[in-house]
C-alpha cells in the first residue's frame, strides 16, 4: 500500500515519512500551517505503539525532544516560524549536547505573527541560529511533496549518524499543497546509539549529557569538534540540484518551494534562447560555498530569487570571496502573493540583458 503513488498533502507526507522512518516519540504544540502533522501523529503514533505528547508550549516541546533524544531514540517536533523562535534555547543545548533529533519548520510569513502565507523568511533563523553560542542546525529544504518525504528520511538519518539536530525547512505552500508522491521504505541503515545514549547505568559506568563545561580547554574543544562535524556533514551529506548549468551565462539561485517556479521560468528562458541555468541548494546549512564559487567561475552573473528580502543571498555573496567581478542580482518578495513563472521570467530576461548581453554588446541595439 505505502509504495503506491498517492495524492498527498505536504504535511501528511512529512508525518507519514516520520512514522516510516521509525520516529519513536513526537512532541508538538499546534500552529498553522503545520498543525496537520500533529493531528496525524496524535493517532498514528499510539497506533504504532509510539509516543505522542501535546506539549504545553514550543519551549516544552523542544525540551521533551531533548530528553527523548538523550535516550537515543528517533524523535521529532514540528512547528512554524514565530514558534520555532521559542525553541532556540533548546536547540542550542541540543546541538552542544550532540543529541540527535529532527525539527520540521513549516515557515509562515513574519515578522511577529505575520500570517500563514508561504515565505522563506526563516532562512536566517534556521541557518544562522537564534540560539546562543557557536553551533549550526543542519538544514534541508524540500521543493516538492516527494522531497518532503525523502528529506524527512534524510533528516532522521543525518541526525542519528552525526548526533546533531537537523531541520527540514518547508513552507506553507509545500505543507498545504497536494501532489502525487510515494512514501517508500526508509532507505537508510540504522545507526547504533547504544555507545552513548542514556538507558540506565546497568553493568557500566553512568553517563551524563550536559552543555555546561566549566573547563576552558574542554569547552573550546567541544565547540571545535562541533564545527569539524559540520564540515564532515557538508562533505558527506550535501545535496543540491543543478539544472542547465553547463555553459550557462547566468545562473539563478533559489531554494525550497520557489525554486520549482524558478525552474519553470528557467525552462522558458532556455526556450527563448537565453543561456540560463538553475542552482538549487537542498542542504542549506552548512552552506555549499565551494560549489557556488565553482559555478560562479564560469558564469557572467548570478540572480538570486527568494521569498524574503535577501537571506540566502548573504551566503551566495560570501561564497564568492575571491571570485572576480561577479555581479549578484536579487529578486525577492517577503510575503503574500506567490511569484508567477512570468514574473520570474521577466526578472531573468531583465538581468540577462543587463549582465550578459551588455557584456557582449547585443543589448545596446
Amino acid at each position, binding site marked *: 500500500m505505502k509504495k503506491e503513488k498517492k495524492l498527498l498533502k505536504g504535511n501528511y507526507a512529512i508525518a507519514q515519512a516520520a512514522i516510516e522512518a521509525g520516529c519513536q*516519540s513526537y512532541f508538538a504544540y499546534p500552529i498553522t500551517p503545520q498543525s496537520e502533522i500533529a493531528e496525524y501523529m496524535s493517532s498514528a503514533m499510539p497506533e504504532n505503539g509510539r509516543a505522542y505528547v501535546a506539549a*504545553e508550549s514550543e519551549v*516544552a516541546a523542544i525540551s521533551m525532544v531533548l530528553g527523548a*533524544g*538523550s535516550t537515543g531514540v528517533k524523535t521529532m517536533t514540528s512547528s512554524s516560524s514565530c514558534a520555532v523562535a521559542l525553541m532556540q*534555547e533548546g536547540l542550542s*543545548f541540543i546541538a552542544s549536547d550532540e543529541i540527535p533529533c529532527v525539527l520540521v519548520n513549516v515557515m509562515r510569513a513574519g515578522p511577529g505573527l505575520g500570517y500563514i502565507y508561504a515565505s522563506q523568511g526563516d532562512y536566517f533563523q534556521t541557518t544562522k541560529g537564534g540560539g546562543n553560542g557557536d553551533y549550526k542546525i543542519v538544514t534541508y529544504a524540500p521543493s516538492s511533496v516527494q522531497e518532503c518525504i525523502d528529506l524527512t528520511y534524510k533528516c532522521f538519518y543525518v541526525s542519528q549518524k552525526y548526533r546533531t539536530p537537523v531541520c527540514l525547512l518547508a513552507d506553507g505552500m509545500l505543507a498545504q499543497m497536494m501532489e502525487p508522491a510515494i512514501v517508500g521504505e526508509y532507505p537508510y541503515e540504522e545507526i547504533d546509539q547504544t555507545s552513548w545514549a542514556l538507558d540506565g*547505568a546497568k553493568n557500566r559506568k*553512568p553517563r*551524563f549529557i550536559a552543555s555546561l563545561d566549566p573547563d576552558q580547554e574542554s569547552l573550546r574543544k567541544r565547540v571545535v569538534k562541533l564545527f569539524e562535524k559540520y564540515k564532515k556533514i557538508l562533505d558527506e551529506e550535501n545535496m543540491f540540484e543543478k539544472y542547465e548549468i553547463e555553459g550557462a551565462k547566468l545562473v539563478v539561485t533559489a531554494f525550497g518551494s520557489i525554486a520549482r517556479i524558478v525552474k519553470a521560468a528557467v525552462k522558458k528562458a532556455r526556450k527563448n534562447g537565453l543561456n540560463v541555468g538553475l542552482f538549487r541548494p537542498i542542504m542549506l546549512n552548512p552552506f555549499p560555498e565551494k560549489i557556488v564559487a565553482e559555478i560562479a567561475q564560469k558564469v557572467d552573473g548570478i540572480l538570486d530569487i527568494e521569498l524574503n528580502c535577501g537571506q540566502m543571498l548573504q551566503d551566495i555573496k560570501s561564497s564568492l570571496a575571491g571570485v572576480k567581478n561577479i555581479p549578484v542580482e536579487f529578486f525577492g518578495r517577503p510575503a503574500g502573493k506567490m511569484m508567477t513563472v512570468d514574473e520570474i521570467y521577466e526578472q531573468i530576461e531583465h538581468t540577462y540583458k543587463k549582465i550578459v548581453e551588455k557584456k557582449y554588446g547585443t543589448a545596446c541595439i
Partner: protein
Amino acid sequence: MEQLVYKRPESIKEDFKIPFCPGCDHGVAVRLVAEVLDELGLREKTIGVASVGCSVCSYDIFNVDIVEAQHGRSMAVATGIKRSKPDKIVFTYQGDGDLASIGIAETIHAMARGEKITTICINNTTYGMTGGQAGPTTLLGQVTTTTVNGRNSETSGFPLKISELLKEIDGVAYVARVSLDSPKSIMNAKKSIKRAFEAQVKGLGTGFVEILSTCPTNWKMTPQQAHERVRGEMSEVFVPGVYKDKVSEAI
C-alpha cells in the same frame, strides 16, 4: 566485632566531592534520594534530570545516567525521556527558582498529564547559585540582594506555596513538604522521597517532594541558625506535611 556505621550509597558516585557550601542541606537531600534509589533497587534503570542552579551538579553526585535540562525545563525533559523509555525510572532534582518560577508551566503541565516521574524540589527561599536574589518562595520581609529592605508584597508580591498549589492537580499522586533540620525530620523526609518514587514505580502519577532547605551562605547564617530559621519562620509559611498520598491508599 565490626559494626557497619556508615556506607556510601551505591547511587552516590565513588569519587563524589561535595560541591555545595558548608552547612547547605543539598548534601543531605542528595544522600536521601540516593538511599531511596538503592533501597528500591532502581539505580540501574534510572535516568535523572539535572536542572540549572546549585542542583546542576547532580551529574557529579548521582551514580546514575543524567541529562542536563535548560533552566526550568526539567519536567519537560523528563517527560521526553519517560515517554520514549516508559520502563525507566525518571526523576528531576530542581531548586524552587527552577521549578516554581521559570519552570512553573512545565511543572504544572507535566503533572496535569500525570507524567510518571518523580520530582524533588529544594526550596531555600532564594536563588542560591547566582548569589542570593529574591525568588518565588522568598518570605515577606526576607532580605536578599534584590530585596535589600526585605520582600515587600506591594512591590514584590507573595511567596508561592508550591505544595499547596500542586496538590490540586489530578495527575499528581503524591505531594509532601519536608525539612532536614533534625534527625527526625530527615527520617521523615526519606519516607516521603520513597513514596514519591513508589508513585512512579506503581504508575500512579507524578510524585513530588518539596524539601525546605538551608542556604547558610546567602542567608548569612551559621548552619545552626539556618536550621532554626527552617523550623521557625519558614515552617510557619511553608507548613510541612503530606498534602496528597495516593500511594499509601494503593499499597
